[in-house]
């Protein structure tokens, strides 16, 4: 169970944050290696030859790729504490369904908000907010997506919270105005040390996105 744990990551990646949160929930010590995504390390290219993306978890020298797969792996290896998935198969399937929804919908619609202008941006905004509203409806009055316990679907979504300030500023909208319950959920998650220590400051993310917009010539 113990052994060498290395995480290849990028500080602003909401996918990398999922793995950081999972490792923190389990109290696992690991070495964090920051990747320059414009100049990927030979280690990254060797460990993830198919997608060449972060995050990659390297456990005892063996790589695991794709953030949600990594989180499930972490849950299984360090199975004696802080379960991240429910034990009931139906509830596990629900958790996986919502994590998959978040994977399919959130990044692309959010990306449209900060990389486009005019009509295209308006369409992206609408899509992004519709997706958040769907998630808010699923959350309902529960403290977390899985119910009373912080878990898999929460981990899948929470990294996007530190990107909201950037989306809101460039898209000219307020997530709190549209989805107050979701913001309440996010703040609840941020009270957990495993989350607050894994997410970067939203101002830093905003500055990063502002720079990327300049690089892409969006301004």
């Amino acid at each position, binding site marked *: 169970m113990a052994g060498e744990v290395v995480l290849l990551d990028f500080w602003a990646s909401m996918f990398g944050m999922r793995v950081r949160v999972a490792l923190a929930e389990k109290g696992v010590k690991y070495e964090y290696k920051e990747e320059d995504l414009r100049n990927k390390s030979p280690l990254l290219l060797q460990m993830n030859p*198919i997608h060449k993306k972060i995050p990659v978890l390297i*456990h005892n020298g063996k790589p695991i790729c794709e953030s949600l*797969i990594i989180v*499930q792996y972490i849950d*299984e290896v360090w199975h004696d504490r802080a379960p991240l998935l429910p034990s009931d*198969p*139906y509830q596990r*399937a629900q958790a996986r369904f919502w994590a998959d929804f978040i994977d399919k919908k959130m990044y692309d619609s959010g990306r449209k908000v900060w990389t486009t202008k005019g009509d295209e941006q308006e369409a992206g905004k609408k899509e992004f907010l519709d997706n958040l509203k769907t998630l808010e409806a699923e959350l309902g009055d529960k403290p977390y997506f899985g119910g009373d316990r912080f878990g898999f679907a929460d981990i899948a979504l929470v990294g996007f919270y530190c990107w909201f300030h950037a989306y809101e500023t460039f898209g000219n909208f307020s997530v709190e105005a549209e989805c107050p319950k979701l913001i309440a959920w996010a703040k609840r998650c941020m009270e957990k040390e495993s989350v607050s220590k894994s997410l970067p400051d939203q101002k830093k993310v905003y500055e990063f996105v502002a720079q990327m917009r300049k690089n892409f010539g969006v301004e």
Partner: protein
Amino acid sequence: MSSKEEVLILDFWGSPFCMRVKIALNEKGVGYESREENLFGGKSELLLSSNPIYQKVPVLLHNGKPLSESSIIVDYINETWPSPPLLPSCPYEKAQAKFWVDFIDKKVFEAGGNIWRSNGEALEQAKQEFIEILKQLEEVLGDSDFFGGKAFGFVDIIAIPLTSWFLAYEKFGGFKVEDHCPKFSAWIKRCLQRDTVAKAIPDSEKVYELVAQLRKMNGIE
């Protein structure tokens, strides 16, 4: 487990995603009822209420409780009826299997779709990309009988139904998978020898006619 289990699939005969669910249940020896949806005419109330987010097949209703997304459904089937196991028990091997399921899910059907949806230069490129993906999967297979190793498993279940559309890709693309990826072809034949698989997969000629119809509907000729 009670003997009176209600297992219902909301189905479409040509959907590889539905075939995955049927094969998984067959492998586990679980009986089920399947209800054909009319995807062109009008989706049933049950489908729309069971899968409000995507409104797609397959939906598995287990004792009335709905599940959607084929790979997630197969995972559920594996966990609910543990024998025979479709995934390795070792967490690392399991993660590798899930990685390839994700790769196949992201790449194969879309690449095939790029073939039947296009013409001319775009079609040639789509063909090349499709063959590259199969070659990548051939490397993963190596010299094993199945993606699961000696035993037919999760990755095989996710992949084999997609091959029911290959004849259509071959006819519209003017190529044969066997010429470029003989190992992959051999794996297809091996899987189709399993009764649990053969009875869930429709005739390729019927699928070809379906795809031809879809091409017309999409205005491609």
